[in-house]
């Protein structure tokens, strides 16, 4: 045994471990999407300890809801998951309608489904585009954003705003669909298919992308269930839970679409589940546009719930009184507590509402899907390399507004 061997054995016995380096991926960091702070302890490049600190975008949503009337929550609800605002609007409208025990007319349900699925497509575009860009693939990001702009054009033509529509109303929608709504949506569909195919051709056989995404950030099924993970992130671990399938709301039970489910819950599966869900959303939109009646009321005709037409308000006294009461006292809701949940962009978006019978919500609790997905990110990142934080955090799709409320 040469002397060098003794030195090596002695060193191994001594176990001189390097003391961990504490690094601070602070609130303002490209990978942290602007509002998360991660304090990580590194041994060389592998993560030993990780403290995720959300809350840098806590804007007091739940406290602000307790100040306005029921319909004044829509603008706040828009800015929860601001990548797919229409889904929050629909979720909030359904929650209060469940409290009131009313059902919106058929045409409005189709309208809500189509606009909601368009928002979901925009959400998955942004998430996949951004996580690919953070791995250096800038081109798919620009393609996806180009088509997302076209999706926003349709939403802008319908609602008047590109992103923060505030278009939902309790008991209907703010306005009926425009005349060119159906053909715009049908004209958009081939574009979506084209850009998804281009992204797949570009990324799915790229050696770097494969190495960075496959087998990285693995989340097991038990961990997902225990952390309360829902949405694409849960489906990527093998849990076939999709609120549109398990508890159909609106008219989702009339469409046949399938729920993509991954097996080993790594970044690759999450990316693929979102990519496949875009196609499923397009299938839903096609069937919904075909089945949607072309005429019929959008709003439920109950003056105590929906705002009367402006033309009536200026002419008839009943409408004026109804309008005055709705504005001044807000919507009269029965006293009680209700939990209504829909499939948001990142998972089960629930609204737990407590009403004390007055026009103002007593307590509004949002069940934020990406809050629990982020809580599970600790399991996915520990033991990995520091470079794995970027793709894993990108595929968790943490949205500040919804996560910190």
């Amino acid at each position, binding site marked *: 045994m040469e002397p060098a061997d003794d030195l090596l054995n002695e060193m191994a016995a001594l176990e001189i471990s390097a003391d961990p380096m504490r690094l601070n991926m602070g609130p303002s960091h490209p990978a942290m999407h602007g509002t998360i702070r991660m304090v990580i302890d590194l041994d060389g490049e592998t993560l030993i300890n990780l403290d995720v600190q959300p809350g840098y975008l806590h804007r007091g949503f739940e406290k602000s809801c307790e100040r306005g009337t029921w319909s004044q929550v829509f603008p706040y609800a828009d800015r929860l998951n601001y990548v797919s605002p229409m889904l929050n609007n629909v979720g909030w409208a359904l929650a209060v309608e469940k409290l009131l025990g009313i059902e919106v007319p058929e045409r409005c349900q189709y309208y809500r489904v189509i606009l909601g699925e368009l928002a979901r497509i925009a959400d998955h575009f942004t998430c996949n585009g951004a996580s690919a860009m953070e791995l250096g693939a800038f081109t798919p990001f620009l393609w996806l954003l180009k088509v997302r702009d076209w999706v926003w054009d349709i939403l802008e033509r319908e609602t008047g705003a590109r992103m923060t529509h505030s278009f939902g109303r309790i008991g209907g929608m703010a306005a009926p669909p425009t005349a060119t709504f159906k053909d715009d949506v049908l004209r958009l569909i081939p574009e979506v298919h084209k850009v998804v195919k281009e992204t797949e051709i570009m990324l799915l056989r790229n050696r770097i992308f494969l190495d960075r995404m496959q087998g990285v950030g693995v989340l097991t099924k038990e961990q997902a269930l*225990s952390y309360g993970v829902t949405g694409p992130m849960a489906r990527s671990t093998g849990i076939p839970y999709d609120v549109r399938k398990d508890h159909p709301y609106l008219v989702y039970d009339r469409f046949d679409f399938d729920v993509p489910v991954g097996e080993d819950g790594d970044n690759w599966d999450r990316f693929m589940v979102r990519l496949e869900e875009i196609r499923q959303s397009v299938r839903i939109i096609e069937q919904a546009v075909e089945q949607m009646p072309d005429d019929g009321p959008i709003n439920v005709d109950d003056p105590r719930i929906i705002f009367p037409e402006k033309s009536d308000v200026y002419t008839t006294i009943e409408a004026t009184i109804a309008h005055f009461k709705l504005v001044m006292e807000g919507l009269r809701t029965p006293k009680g507590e209700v939990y209504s949940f829909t499939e948001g962009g990142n998972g089960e978006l629930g609204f737990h509402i407590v009403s004390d019978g007055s026009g103002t919500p007593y307590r509004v609790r949002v069940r934020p899907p990406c809050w629990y997905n982020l809580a599970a990110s600790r399991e996915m990142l520990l033991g990995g390399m520091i470079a794995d934080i970027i793709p894993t955090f990108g595929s968790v799709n943490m949205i500040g507004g919804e996560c910190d409320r």
Partner: protein
Amino acid sequence: MSQAVVDRLDAQFGERVLESSDAFGDHEVRVALKDWAEVAQFMKDDVDLQMDHFIDLTAVDYPERELARFDLVLMMRSSVTGARIRLRTHVKDGEEPGTLSGIWSGANWAEREVWDMFGIKFNGHPDMRRILLYEEFVGHPLRKDYPIDKAQPLVPYREVDTIDKLPPFGIEEGQPFARIDWESRLAGGDSQVSPALGVQQGQRRTLSDSEAAQKIQARIEAQMAKQAEAAQASEEPSDEGSGE
């Protein structure tokens, strides 16, 4: 199917299930605070229920209620049967429910948020810190008695005198679009900034030199002159904007 969950719990706990209701279609069971962790553990381990999918944990504040101020609400779902149940308990101010983070890991952050927002501590919780607000924050904002606009800034505000954030348009200016006489402006060519706003922000004019422009220019000078001598009249110190 959630009714089966309620019956199973009644069978198991009998009178310890204080109340159960299915208002608005949500099945709910209320238990005393001392059985909170035990019932939750049972719901997860029981072979019929298997409530393994944690959904949400939150609290509601009823300050007027004398017997117990807070409602703690836990929602779970079973990934096997798909059944959902809501578990509720009453918590007095200062009481500490047992932590559920051992049963579901998702409860860790949920409980930290309930502590941060309501001030309900959970004993046995591994890391009872604030999660949404900063450590220096005093008080729990989602309590009804915390005023909504009581801010506790970390960085002292700097007084902003460089731009006077007056309401968008003065009374006499009205909507900028309404204040422009279109003929003269169209005759005189486009101007990027409406005169009303230009005066408000003291911008450089970008008008062309047509007579319509001169007319508008004259009106602006008159207004500026009126503002200037109004400023002298009130003699407030005209310090130069900071703009460092």
